[in-house]
């Protein structure tokens, strides 16, 4: 078994929200007790709809924001309480690729300088050395040498995302957190970037934490998947398990909602009622109970915990399965 590169224990982040100057303080629990491990060389995906906390989770892991509680272990070191000065060491190992390739590149910098910037910050290489590494990186991500002297606005969305990936890779990181890296791109370009990410993973033995709302993309790229709803993981498992044998009613609904580009496929859709609840004022008990087609009395009062169901490494947080576990233990 490959070793664990990232481990997250009880990770929490709350943001303070106020209604006016004298309003009562309220907390938005964006991430509410995340637990998961990511193995070296794999792709772990966090999926969920807007506001489920997947991006916040990504920013916490890279320590772009400070967690409220919990532990983040990267390569055997607990970094959740490290100070900014200490974090420099982690930034070499953990890099991010952002969603919006238009907003995440400085418009006044040449591409060459954008890609070289991590080297300027983290290394004492000579100018020549840096330039050599940048040229290499341009080639790795599929850009021409001369394009290095252009500015971001001269590139298309897909090319900009290549630049963003180049910048993340230049430090030879172990872990890349990719926050919706292909959602702003057209499908034909999206597939180019997905293929590139896969190639790079093999070449550099990279580990990805892939954050996305698009289940078809997630199925294509992941090894393990965590499905998030309102700040918590409701189901975790290997890709095959999640897609062929989803356990949580939310995962089932999510999967059945994805339109399949094949008119011959006819399936029963699970259409959820209502909207995602306001995270400032989440429902009691299981947070999904207001929209769940299988809701029971117990769901309204008690929040289920993430537990192993049938097979190894396939976890779900749902009261539906509490019974099966109990029954099984009775039989055993």
């Amino acid at each position, binding site marked *: 078994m490959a070793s664990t590169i990232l481990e997250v224990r009880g990770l929490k982040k709350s943001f303070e929200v106020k209604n006016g100057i004298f309003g009562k303080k309220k907390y938005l629990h964006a991430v509410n007790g995340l637990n998961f491990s990511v193995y070296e060389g794999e792709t772990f995906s966090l999926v969920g*709809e*807007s506001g489920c906390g997947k991006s916040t989770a990504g920013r916490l892991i890279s320590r772009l924001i400070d967690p409220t509680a919990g532990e983040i272990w990267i390569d055997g070191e607990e970094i959740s309480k490290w100070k900014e000065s200490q974090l420099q060491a982690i930034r070499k190992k953990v890099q991010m690729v952002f969603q919006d390739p238009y907003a995440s590149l400085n418009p006044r910098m040449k591409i060459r300088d954008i890609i070289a910037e991590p080297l300027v910050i983290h290394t004492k290489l000579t100018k020549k050395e840096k330039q050599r590494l940048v040229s290499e990186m341009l080639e790795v991500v599929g850009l021409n040498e001369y394009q290095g002297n252009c500015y971001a606005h001269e590139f*298309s969305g*897909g*090319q900009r995302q290549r630049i963003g990936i180049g910048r993340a890779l230049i430090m030879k990181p172990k872990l890349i957190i990719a926050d919706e890296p292909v959602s702003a791109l*057209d*499908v*034909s*370009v*999206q*597939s*180019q970037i*997905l*293929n590139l990410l*896969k190639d790079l993973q093999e070449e550099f033995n990279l580990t990805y934490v892939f954050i996305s*709302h698009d*289940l*078809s*993309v997630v*199925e*294509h790229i992941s090894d393990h998947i965590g499905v998030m709803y309102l700040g918590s993981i409701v189901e975790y498992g290997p890709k095959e398990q999640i*897609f062929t044998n989803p356990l949580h009613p939310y995962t089932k*609904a*999510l*999967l*059945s*909602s*994805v*339109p*399949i*580009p*094949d*008119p*011959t*496929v006819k399936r029963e*859709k699970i*259409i*959820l009622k209502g*909207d*995602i609840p306001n995270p400032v004022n989440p429902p009691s008990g299981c947070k999904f109970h207001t929209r769940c087609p299988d809701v029971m009395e117990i769901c309204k009062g008690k929040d289920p915990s993430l537990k192993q169901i049938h097979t190894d490494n396939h976890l779900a947080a749902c009261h539906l399965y509490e019974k099966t576990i109990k029954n099984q233990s009775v039989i055993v």
Partner: protein
Amino acid sequence: MEDIILKVEQLQTDFQKDNQRIRILNGVSFHISKGEILGLVGESGCGKSLTSLSIMRLFKGTSGEISGGNIFFRDEDITKVTENQMRKIRGKQIAMIFQEPMTSLNPVMKIGEQLMEPIRIHLGYNNKRAKQHAVQMLTKVGIPRSNEIMNEFPHQLSGGMRQRVMIAIAMSCNPDVLIADEPTTALDVTIQAQILDLMRKLQKEENMSMLLITHDLGVVAEMCDRVVVMYAGRVVEEASVHDLFQSPLHPYTRGLIGSVPKIGQKKDRLESIAGRVPDPSNMPKGCKFAPRCSDATAECHEKEPSMLEVEKNRYCSCWLYDKGRSLISG
């Protein structure tokens, strides 16, 4: 003969840029029959949204202008009607919903007011009747507490709810054709499923014709009867939804379908289309897709192919199909 309700013929739309006229749409043709859902697909910049704006003639404040072609609504060429006549068609006979439910509703106007405006103007109802009708419409699109929502503002509603309001406004005058421009792109998948379900239900109930513009091939496969594929301001292929997905003809369509990851399909690598969409002010000579096409021959770079009926009811504009079928490989 099927009942054709909207027919677009050789539509050309130009924009002005730096004192230069740039042709964005170049000979777009298609038709929609009564009760049919026609999908218009393509990637950003292919002109699919502009096609809908051209049909509605929504060019105010831009340099856009229809410079050629006809748009027949029933038997009337609506490119020839005056702006005043167009206002009577717009919203009443041809209605439209947009991608961004956030920006297409007026933020400082109550939902009720926005909903009653077209009802009063097009149907000539008085306030009381218009209000009744508006509440009915809100209920019809599945909005709970519709009476209260009438007095709320768009920012108080979620994205899915706003899109429902947009649909209620568009449907309020019982239009013959509904143009939906990326109606679910800004929404989460579970909400998208709700909205698509609602649109399908309403379309069936009213036997309405619909032009569904989207980049999402999954949505197309689920909703549409027939599909028109656009590239660089031109129609490159037209087919029934089954034919299109089963055996796409145009290399662009093939690439597009191949590049979408599909749930349940175990593929290690996705197909992709090299390069990118050409710049409208600097279009390549010949077939506009030739620079990205793996099947391109010298001829493709020289001459633009024309639309051919390759099989019955299957149209494609590609040189591959012009020289006999021997060239076509599975």
